[in-house]
């Protein structure tokens, strides 16, 4: 695959989605800020979405790949809503959203 016609071969899409995946995981693990963690999660979900679309386009004619991506976006939204509510509650209780603060329950 040459670097130029990047958009009409599947490897490009897969490359992008795997980069997105690693970025998402990295940010979930290292971000101190709770919202940062949520961002990471969203990145992972989007990476999955890209994968589905790419496979659906290049491999099989069926559109169930795209259908799945739609559902992923839908569910990501629901998750984000609930997550933000929880983090809001977290802030109200602890006046900070530093993930390491949440260590009341341990060993």
């Amino acid at each position: 695959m040459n670097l130029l016609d990047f958009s009409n071969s599947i490897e490009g899409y897969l490359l992008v989605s795997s980069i997105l995946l690693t970025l998402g995981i990295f940010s979930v693990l290292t971000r101190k800020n709770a919202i940062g963690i949520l961002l990471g999660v969203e990145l992972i979900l989007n990476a999955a979405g890209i994968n589905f679309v790419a496979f659906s386009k290049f491999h099989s004619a069926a559109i169930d790949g795209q259908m799945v991506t739609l559902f992923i976006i839908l569910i990501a939204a629901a998750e984000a809503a609930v997550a933000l509510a929880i983090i809001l509650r977290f802030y109200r209780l602890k006046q900070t959203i530093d993930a390491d603060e949440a260590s009341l329950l341990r060993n």
Partner: protein
Amino acid sequence: MLVSLKAFAPELTLVGFLSLLFLLDGFVPKLRENRFPLIWVIVSCFAAGVATAVGKGLSGDFFSGLVTETGLVAFFRYFFFFACGVTAYVTLGSKEIEERGRSEFSLLILCMTFGMSLMVLANHFLMLYIGIETVSIISFVLAGFNRESSRSNEASFKYLVYGAVSSGLMIYGISLVYGYTGALSYPAIAEALIKNNGTHPFVFYLALVMIYAGFAYKISSFPFHFWTPDVYEGSPTPVATFFSVGPKAAGFGALLHFVLTALSQKQEGGVFTPIAGIQLAPVMALISAATMVVGNLSAIAQTNVKRMLAFSSIAHVGYVLMGFVVMTPAAFSSIIFYLIAYCAMNLGAFWIVGIVTDEKKGSELSDFKGMGWRTPVMGVCMAIFLFSLTGIPLFSGFIGKFLIFGNLIQSQSYLWLALLGVLNSVVSLYYYTKILRAMWLEKPESSDSAELRLPLSQLVGLLGLALPTVILGLFFSPVLEMAQRWITQ
């Protein structure tokens, strides 16, 4: 289309009752305070159970391959409705869920039960993902139900982060499988895999492990169990009760369904052999051994009973996973039996922990001091549940372990796993009897040694769970035959 609806009857009744409650709750505010919502949940579960009984006999794929009806699914439906009904009954007596939160609480557990049955019905990755996500999101909310307590909030936060990452990984894995096999419904994947007869690229194994991440998080097996103790300790006890039984069983149901249809072929005589190139047994053995050991060892040094029971539930996941190592119908029926036994004793144990937490505002071991003498019936029930969890004969836990170890030994391989399992149950005795030691062997502080009279409803409920644990321990053949029938259907 109509036929598919008929197969979907139980879920529909559930949704019907759910929305009715939703409307009633909205328009008739005075209903919120008293016990109406919870009783409504019990009624709806009962109705759904009846619907499954009526709808029995249908089998095959519906909703264009998204869903399938098998005996196994019927079992899991009964299981979820029973678990949801008992949780509602438990919350009736519990003080941790305030009066006004009851209607939301009922709505949430009903919706979660619906999600769980979806998971097990799923014959298609999409349906599986939707099911898992419904259950996860609702459980994040349930975990954080006590708005004021930061512990509950912290529990939900951790559950959220952990859940989101795991399901993210899972869907990524599914996408890779879709890419490799070009199909999403289980049977189609199976055919695609068989065509490749044995040699699969590295990325397929990566995908499999990622998909396993989703299941493992749901049943909290070894690598994905870290959230369980904190969430069970943080969340209100009735919620923890439901978590320890409902979603876990749903995870097992989904995993069972996925492994049987997507990854293996059905040989004659009901034995399932994994498709060439995928050796499940060694991995499963390793995971099950690790889960057991981690669960039991960590529980030893706990002082909080809820955390201890959390680790004990992880350990039991390890025992059930042992069934997956040997893919024979006998193994699957013993898994089902084990789940039934586990459900009864675990619900009972958590219920009693809930009662003690209400009474003593804490679930530390010291809060259990002398409770046996103060409420003898509860003390005896707790003894029955804990001894059954350890696997002492005369109780259903022993029969569960007896069947699972039996299968392992019958296969004449992985004997080391059976030995490890047996030694683990000895270790488990040590921390289970810590609770009994506090309840019976130590005298209550003189300050609060008054006789604690439990309301009749709770007593009846406890006995309702304790009796089957004993009866199942002695006369277990009828249930075992039912399980075998479910498997073969």
